[in-house]
């Protein structure tokens, strides 16, 4: 088939996508498909790696031994998810070292949510419950991705994330059933995380530069708006069931559409936060750089020993 023209290869490739076939590492693929995947998967990997930090900070202060063990396991999972995703990106020909350089130099983007502070234990519960619910809705969709290694990594990750949601919900539940001060702390954490979590699914499709190709080639199978709406419809009744409030007076179920209406987050804020100007971007990258430098001797020793 080496004699096939570029146009014929593209037609053949798109026909495979339309039939629901999975694309594997050795297959021919348009360069834009490869580049789009490398961008998405490496950003996703960086998000998991940086995502260890806001919650990891709370490991020494977790209330009780069981919650401490749980949080350690969750943060370890995030590291593992980062590794799985880096491996999926490597299968497209991008090296681990190049991805690491892009993260540490500040060139790479990662999920907005990890650039916000976690001033209270309640933030750990709300991240597990809200942020990880939004993540699982997105990742369940990505498990259907046309790129085989990405979809397979997603299925493994979703299985583990369901534990993350459960432990977060359990932590918030304990506070919602607790003292007035605990209920207030839970509410304040929800207030802090509501809009950043809505932003996490990405800008509206009209503003998204990559969505069109990603949908056409089934790298993702739902638009940012669809994923966000699924999250809102899922989480709003849960928040209210705990006697807590969604910090959006206009958020209501609309019987005509069968969905909840909600106020759009500030998309300018999303742009600022993912381009390096959120409240904690510098702090997060400084921690990663320090860890990378302090681990250099280990990498070098392994290299010499091998």
């Amino acid at each position, binding site marked *: 088939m080496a004699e096939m023209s570029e146009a014929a290869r593209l037609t053949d490739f798109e026909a495979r996508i339309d039939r629901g076939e999975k694309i594997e590492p*050795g297959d021919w693929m348009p360069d834009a498909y490869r580049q789009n995947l490398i961008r998405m998967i490496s950003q996703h990997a960086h998000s998991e790696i940086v995502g260890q930090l806001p919650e990891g900070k709370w490991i020494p202060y977790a209330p009780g031994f069981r919650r401490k063990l749980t949080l350690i396991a969750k943060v370890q999972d995030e590291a593992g998810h980062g*590794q799985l995703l880096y491996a999926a990106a*490597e299968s497209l020909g991008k*090296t*681990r*070292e*190049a991805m690491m*350089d892009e993260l540490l130099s500040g060139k790479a983007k990662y999920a907005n949510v990890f650039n916000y502070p976690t001033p209270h234990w309640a933030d750990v519960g709300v991240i597990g419950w809200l942020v990880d619910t939004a993540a699982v809705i997105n990742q369940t969709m990505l498990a259907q991705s046309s790129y085989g290694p990405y979809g397979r990594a997603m299925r*493994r990750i979703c299985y583990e994330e369901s534990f993350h949601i459960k432990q977060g919900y359990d932590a918030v539940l304990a506070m919602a059933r607790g003292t007035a001060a605990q209920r207030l702390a839970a509410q304040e954490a929800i207030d802090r995380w509501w809009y950043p979590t809505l932003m996490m699914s990405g800008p509206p499709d009209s503003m998204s530069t990559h969505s069109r190709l990603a949908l056409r080639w089934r790298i993702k199978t739902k638009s940012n708006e669809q994923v966000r709406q699924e999250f809102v419809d899922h989480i709003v009744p849960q928040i209210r069931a705990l006697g807590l409030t969604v910090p959006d007076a206009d958020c209501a179920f609309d019987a005509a559409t069968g969905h909840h209406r909600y106020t759009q987050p500030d998309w300018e804020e999303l742009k600022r936060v993912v381009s390096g100007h959120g409240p904690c971007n510098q702090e997060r990258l400084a921690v990663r750089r320090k860890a990378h430098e302090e681990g250099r001797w280990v*990498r070098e020793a392994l290299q010499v020993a091998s």
Partner: protein
Amino acid sequence: MTDTQWSTWEVFHQTKRGDPHEHVGSVHAPDPQMALQLARDQFARRLKCSSLWVVRTSDIVMTDYQDPTFFAQTTDKSYRDPKAFDAPEKRHP
């Protein structure tokens, strides 16, 4: 800042003795022992595992998805299939 360039290793996981080893993903490591340790941390941290294999990705020889002729059946091979025979399973009385 690029200071190493490690290989990737494909990981095969066996849930219990007697089961087949199944491909579960890959790890990035400088040598086979480190690859096995990382594979354990990555793929055996929750569910049961009795054995892991790692194989350097570049050592795997594979068929080409783009070459449909490799698996093409040029002649009728239905005689290899038990369903192709009418003879009843049970002996006639």
